[in-house]
């Protein structure tokens, strides 16, 4: 009896040892692969993880010449200042409104366009439309905003010229805070709606054609086929993308908003990113603006986790 337990114990030890040496063998066999991914890992450590470590300056009174090690700790002082300022709540609201526009107005558009493109039977027509609507995605925000500027400007912009011909008043789109939000979301749609169809179209091509056949037999017209077959089939992709979009909650794009921002529309256009830039790099309040950025990043991460949890609750796959 004793001998058997001993051998069993020894056996277990032996297995463990073998497993470890097996792992070790696999690591050694792949040493060239580790060499390959080493530069990539170093890149992520330095330019992605080191800045995360740098977030601790939001709890300090960071002085550039003293560095992170030498700067004085101040606890939550910057966060307190943040939550107490009226500016903060204005920025918070602006960010949320633009986010809402992205989710409720922009997000469904690529899905609708994909469904429409999917109904096209002439592939040259489909390809032609796709080619045209993808193009703006390749233009920078500077180009998009510049095109808007030259078209919307009061003196000689074509849009105001058309308004005038039709007998309307000219509108100062660029310096009017009422026009900032519509302009913002229209530019987002113009640049990204076409590009956004790619992923939905790919998901649609994976749908089994027999399902449509069967639906037709049952007398479903094309709207009903779309509603009962195509949309449920791509539901998963829609949810994954929605989660990712929600994760981007405060990531509205520094460039785009910054380019549109001016002193007349600031009350609706200033968002976290632009505020961080001005307070941090232009006014030198490193710690305070890092606290703003930290708050933003934290909310974003919490939103992804929440959205993913929600998706799983409803029996969807989620992203992790």
């Amino acid at each position, binding site marked *: 009896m004793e001998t058997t337990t001993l051998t069993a114990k020894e056996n277990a030890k032996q297995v463990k040892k073998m497993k470890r040496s097996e792992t070790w063998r696999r690591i050694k066999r*792949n040493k060239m692969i580790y060499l390959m991914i080493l530069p990539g890992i170093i890149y992520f450590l330095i330019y992605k993880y080191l800045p995360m470590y740098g977030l601790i300056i939001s709890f300090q009174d960071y002085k550039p010449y003293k560095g992170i090690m030498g700067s004085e700790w101040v606890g939550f002082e910057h966060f307190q200042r943040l939550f107490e300022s009226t500016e903060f709540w204005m920025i918070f609201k602006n960010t949320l409104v633009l986010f809402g526009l992205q989710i409720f107005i922009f997000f469904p558009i690529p899905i609708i366009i994909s469904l429409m493109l999917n109904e096209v039977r002439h592939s040259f027509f489909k390809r032609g439309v796709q080619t045209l609507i993808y193009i703006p995605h390749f233009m920078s925000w500077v180009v998009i905003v510049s095109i808007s500027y030259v078209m919307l400007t009061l003196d000689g912009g074509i849009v105001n010229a058309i308004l005038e011909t039709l007998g309307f008043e000219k509108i100062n789109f660029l310096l009017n805070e009422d026009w900032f939000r519509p302009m913002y979301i229209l530019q987002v749609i113009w640049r990204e709606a076409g590009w956004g169809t790619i992923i939905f179209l790919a998901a649609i091509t994976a749908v089994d054609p027999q399902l449509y056949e069967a639906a037709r037999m049952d007398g479903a017209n094309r709207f009903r086929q779309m509603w009962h077959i195509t949309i449920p089939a791509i539901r998963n992709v829609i949810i994954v993308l929605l989660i990712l979009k929600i994760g981007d909650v405060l990531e509205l794009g520094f460039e785009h908003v910054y380019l549109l921002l001016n002193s007349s529309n600031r009350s609706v256009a200033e968002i976290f990113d632009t505020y961080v830039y001005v307070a941090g790099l232009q006014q030198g309040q490193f710690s305070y603006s890092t606290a703003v950025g930290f708050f933003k990043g934290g909310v974003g991460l919490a939103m992804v986790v929440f959205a993913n949890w929600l998706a799983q609750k409803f029996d969807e796959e989620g992203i992790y």
Partner: protein
Amino acid sequence: MAKQRISAGSKVFDFFNYFLLALLGIITILPFIHVVGSSFATSAEVANTKFLLFPTDFSIKAYEYIFSTDTIFRALGVSILVTVGGTLWSMLFSTLTAYGLSRRDLVGRRAINFMIVFTLLFNGGMIPTFLVVQQTGLLNSLWALVIPVTINAFNMIILRSFFMNLPAGLEESAKIDGANDFSILFRIVLPISLPAIATISLFYAVTYWNTYMHAILYLADADKWPVQVLLRQIVVLASGMNYDAETYTDVPPPEVTVKMATIVVATVPVLLVYPFLQKYFAKGALLGSVKG
């Protein structure tokens, strides 16, 4: 499938569908045609004509003007250098990392993948990243536009998924023939991965060509500004409307045709490569993104 009788409802559906999509395509491209058209017009015509798509009075004055100083040549030079160099740089490291992580027998693969995906969900933000760029000595160097964005995690994941879908037997047989991992990657895997490589290269090239934020963050020296920053100077700042007008200069605002021409110059290079690579990215990009 066998064609059945097409119902009237279906025909109406088709009509509206085709009509709306055609309209969408036209509306998308119209603003750009307007800009290109105006850039080849005389300023007088731009001021007087209301619906200008194609100028009747053709002129290349605006282009002569913007190319008369070396400012735009220098900016274009910077953009081209950063685009070509940056794309090669990013592709080298993205491919190495993606291929390495596509190998299923790699110990620690899951942990490393998680570490990379996590950077998509959370990052240090603008100021801490700025401090790292500063401390690694890149401020005011063109490397600042490239090194801090060496690998785009999304692009890397797409490449990795593509590599993972290649037949495993390929590597095994090369291994038996005595090839090492590097020669497998460069001699066997890359040549058959051209669609994915072309797609991701295009994505990187477009990002580098459009680089703007990093230039205003990291480059103080106007000589090093890429064409996007110059465009913003000429169109947005010269309209006197930007929020932060500290770089605003007192030169008289350029004529509208000059602005149009600068927009065209800043856009055309991207539009030139697009048709050549389009056939690739329709297939290539998707392989990765759908399967995640």
